[in-house]
């Protein structure tokens, strides 16, 4: 079972460390959620795992190999995909072209994967020739999700996949995430909608002030009175 592990991750912007000694792990086939209050360093931790930030301490390994100093785009080739929170689609390109670009690194036939993604998100098939920039927020997230899936990742990282979409669309997206997780892809996501996210998660991490504060199964964290009180809203 392949896993992506971040050990003692310490990093930040412009000399100030935002995350300190954070440990994260995600295995193939499991859904892991990072929750925590605003400014806790959730997204930063994820970017550190992907190599978009220079670590001041700690390291990242993938399938037991040390990849701490690998460029983000090379990690993509290993099978680590990332969906940023914003600007996560090519707005000037059609839905289908977005998916094709997702499969850019692949030399095999990508049409089958495109079909799979259309089955997962039927609305995308309908709008395949429309520019991604003209789609609604929820549809855009589906395109972004689909683009990342095109690389056939082993580990998929999602930065707030449900930011700015309606509750109905959010439920829809979550159920798709579960479906993808069942196919053996490891999913690590940062979520504002902590309750719903923990509900579908196998495991969760709570970050507070850039540090690991708690970890456990999704249900455990949901039932934990302290976690509930501090940011799940009672």
């Amino acid at each position, binding site marked *: 079972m392949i896993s992506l592990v971040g050990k003692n991750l310490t990093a930040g912007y412009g000399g100030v460390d935002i995350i300190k000694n954070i440990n994260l792990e995600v295995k193939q086939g499991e859904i892991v959620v990072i929750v925590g209050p605003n400014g806790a360093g959730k997204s930063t931790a994820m970017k550190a795992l992907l190599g978009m930030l220079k670590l001041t301490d700690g390291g990242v390994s993938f399938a037991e190999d040390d990849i701490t100093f690998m460029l983000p785009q090379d990690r993509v*080739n290993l099978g680590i*995909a*990332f969906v940023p929170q914003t600007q996560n689609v090519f707005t000037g390109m059609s839905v289908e072209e977005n998916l094709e670009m997702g499969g850019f690194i692949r030399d095999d036939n990508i049409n089958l994967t495109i079909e799979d993604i259309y089955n997962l998100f039927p609305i995308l098939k309908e709008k395949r020739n429309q520019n991604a920039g003209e789609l609604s927020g929820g549809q855009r997230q589906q395109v972004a999700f689909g683009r990342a899936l095109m690389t056939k990742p082993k580990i998929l990282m999602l930065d707030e996949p449900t930011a700015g979409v309606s509750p109905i669309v959010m439920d829809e997206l979550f159920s798709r995430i579960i479906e993808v997780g069942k196919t053996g892809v490891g999913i690590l996501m940062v979520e504002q909608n902590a309750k719903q996210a923990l509900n579908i998660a196998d495991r969760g991490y709570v970050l507070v002030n850039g540090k690991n504060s708690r970890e456990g199964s999704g249900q455990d964290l949901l039932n934990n009175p302290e976690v509930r009180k501090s940011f799940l809203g009672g």
Partner: protein
Amino acid sequence: MLLNFVIIPGLSYGSQLALGALGVTFVYAVLRFANFAHGELMSFGAMITILFTWFFQSQNIGLGILPTALIALPFGILATIVLGLLSDKFVFKYYRKQKSVPVVLAMVSIGVMFVVNAIIRIIVGTETIKFSDGQKFIMKAKQFKAMTGLNEGLALKSSQVITILITILLLTFTFWFLQKTKTGKSMRAFSDNEDLALLSGINPDRVVFITWLIVGTLACVAGTLYGLDKSYKPIIYLNLVLPVFASAIVGGIGSPFGAVVGGYVIAFSEIMVTYAYKKFFKYLLPESLEPSSLVQLLSTDYKFAVSFTILVIVLLIRPSGIFRGKVL
């Protein structure tokens, strides 16, 4: 008659501008800066083509009725691409790695412009060079008169026909490349969203390389066609930067389709405003009203003022250009 003095010259001049503006737009969309050295890139390409034309002429190699420059063109293109890649490797790359703001890169490109301009002057001097040979006219004014019985001539210069044909060919290829090939799409993706392109595993160095291939080709062809049509003079290309940029911006800088449309818009406005309408009115109006002057809206010396004016108007009314630019 309008066809003779406005439409045909407009089409060929517009084609030259369109190709030039397309090159500017490519650099802007992918490398994200306004490349003021583009005019010199065109000039350099034309110069190399001229040098090879002379060589072929001295060897008595020619294309019969077609200008010898057409065989020399591929060598010019190659040299222009090399120059583009070298300027990128030794100058622009450094600032890109520094993540300099676009205006710094634009200033740097002005430096490159002066250097290339100086190199060109050292090599061929500053004089006007005519290098078009082969048959000059496809149809001479007199032939047309004889053929149709009309009393105004229609002259069709072969350089104009060549310009228009090559432009159609090159534009078709460029748009096909951008829309249909994987590499072309990856360039559009890179220009659309650089970070996401990296996350998709698109190699930025390769995109930059291909950009210079295209830009070098477009610049050299545009420069050579302009030189064939008019004549080659290094200083002209310094002036040509203005209408080329005006075309790119009017069409929406970063949008290839916009660059092409912009090229024709600028060309037709320049020619229509500076065209002497005297003869035109002579046919329309009774003799007593016949104008005594040339009835030019503006003298040809103000040609560049026209592109400037259009540029300012477009920037005031629709800053993003006719076709919202920014990405390929």
